[in-house]
């Protein structure tokens, strides 16, 4: 058991730009650039950046939904960056992801009981029908949903309930490591607070190690031990939550912090000296 559960070294991901000519080799566009992370077991890392910063790509690399262009990812001492799908499979049960939009990541045609236990079925860990119902009920209970929801379809749930279901599915295989990608960004403050408190509780109960991807620094402060700030695919600042919030070093971190509208009346916030900079004229974010 090493102290660091997940470590990346010079992790880089690039994809080919649209080729300018039919035969020319397409230029590569780096969206994650030489990122070094070390995530201690049982800790939560907040991964923060704006649209297009590469945070989702980095998250997908960590769960190996993408293969790095260069650099490595060590999970519990095993190099998984270039592992074949076959060799990766036993590890996949220990690495899970919670997706941003539970509306589209839950199969609308399946009852929750089936969706939640599908991972168990895939790994052959289900013993018949009754076991499925029991396991599903236990998972629902774990995330604070009524057991009766096993027979519900996703459209019968509210946004917050659906997000809880997404969390339950990620927990089905009792993973060590979870990447949660913007899972509270579409929610109301009160629903959001409930989900954040749930994650905090689950983390303490199950000893989870998590990467929590968000564009919202206030949310990160509630849940995370460390924060990594990403800009244009590069890690610009990385450290403990208290340090980064109390004395941010990088100008970009300071800019992000000052742009958060706190619920305090502050005359002058709108006519701040900082000029209105037109955003990029081209292209929306990835």
């Amino acid at each position, binding site marked *: 058991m090493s102290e660091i559960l997940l470590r990346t070294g010079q992790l880089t991901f690039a994809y080919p730009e649209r080729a300018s000519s039919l035969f020319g080799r397409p230029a590569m566009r780096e969206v994650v650039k030489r990122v070094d992370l070390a995530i201690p077991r049982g800790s939560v890392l907040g991964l923060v950046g*704006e*649209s297009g910063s590469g945070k989702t790509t980095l998250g997908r690399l960590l769960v190996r939904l993408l293969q790095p262009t260069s650099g490595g990812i060590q999970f519990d001492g095993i190099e998984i960056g270039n592992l074949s799908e076959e060799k990766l499979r036993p590890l996949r049960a220990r690495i899970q992801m919670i997706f941003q939009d539970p509306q589209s990541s839950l199969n609308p045609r399946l009852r929750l009981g089936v969706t939640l236990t599908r991972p168990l079925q895939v790994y052959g860990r289900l013993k018949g029908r009754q076991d499925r119902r029991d396991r599903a009920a236990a998972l629902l209970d774990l995330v604070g949903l009524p057991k009766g929801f096993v027979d519900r379809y996703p459209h*019968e*749930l*509210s*946004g*917050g*309930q659906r997000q809880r279901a997404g969390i339950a599915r990620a927990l089905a295989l009792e993973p060590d490591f979870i990447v949660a990608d913007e899972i509270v960004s579409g929610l*109301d*403050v*009160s*629903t*959001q*607070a*409930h989900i*954040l*408190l749930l994650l905090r509780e689950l983390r303490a109960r199950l000893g989870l190690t998590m990467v929590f991807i968000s*564009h*919202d*620094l*206030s*949310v990160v*402060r*509630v*849940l995370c031990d460390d924060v990594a700030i990403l800009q244009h695919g590069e890690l610009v600042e990385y450290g403990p939550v*208290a340090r980064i*919030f109390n004395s941010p070093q990088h100008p970009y971190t300071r*800019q*992000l*912090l000052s*742009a*958060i*509208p*706190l*619920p*305090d*009346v*502050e005359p002058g*916030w*709108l*006519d*701040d000296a900082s000029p*209105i*900079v*037109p*955003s*990029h*004229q*081209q*292209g*929306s*974010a990835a």
Partner: protein
Amino acid sequence: MTAVLAVQDLHVAIGPRGKAANVLRGASLEVQAGEVRGLVGESGAGKSMLGRAVLGLLPANAVVQSGTIQFEGRDLLAMPEPERRSLLGRRIALIPQDPMTSLNPVKRVGAQISIMLRHHLALSKREALERATELLTEVAIREPRRVLDLYPHEISGGMRQRVLIAMAFACDPSLVIADEPTTALDVTVQRQVLQLVERLRQRHGAAILFVTHDLGVVAKICRTMTVLHAGRVLEDGETADVLVKPRHPYTRALLAATPRADRPAEALRPVPPALIESLWSEAHRLDRLAVAGPA
């Protein structure tokens, strides 16, 4: 002095008869000339419905049951349809929530702005183009001529929102309904967009009803605010007073549930079950009754 907008005891129901849900249950509010009023609430509180009712854009299955909506002293609900239509976009404008879907994807930006200018202000093609260029310059878009020739998918989300803001203020409206205009944007872009809205408001002298769930945004741009919950107004007042000394327990709960970047984690307090959750269970209880109902 009459208010630009006065909503009185508005009741709106949505859904089939007998099973209709009351989304607004006696909501009242006023917006004075030049005022920016925040309309705050969670999903399902009815805040967007109120904005839509003012614009006459309620969904087809929604009915205004009672109440009045006065715009500059005239009742919008009693007004003949053509007259009301002539106000929309010209005297009452909308900044929509979603910059991704609010522009027509198959029309160039310039064409979308000029069709509106030509309709409301009876400008010639050439004049409309001139005015559209000015408008984009006003919202800090560089190379406005080039942007007018682009399609919505060729510009960023922040820029699309700027285009929509430019269109909202184009005809010097006296009331702008802003429906969560910055929810989809990054914080740094959000700040620029809020600065822009404030600048245009001052220049054009419009009043704004700013619909949002974000108390932070309200604190920065709204002088007054109305808290809506389950279709009713719970609290109403100067933003500075409401945020510092909320009178209603619900407003206090909302504030306590808002995570703050300037405070450590412990500050976040548990809140009563989210409104939307109870609304959903209620809706499904009704559905089940209807299904199980008369055999």
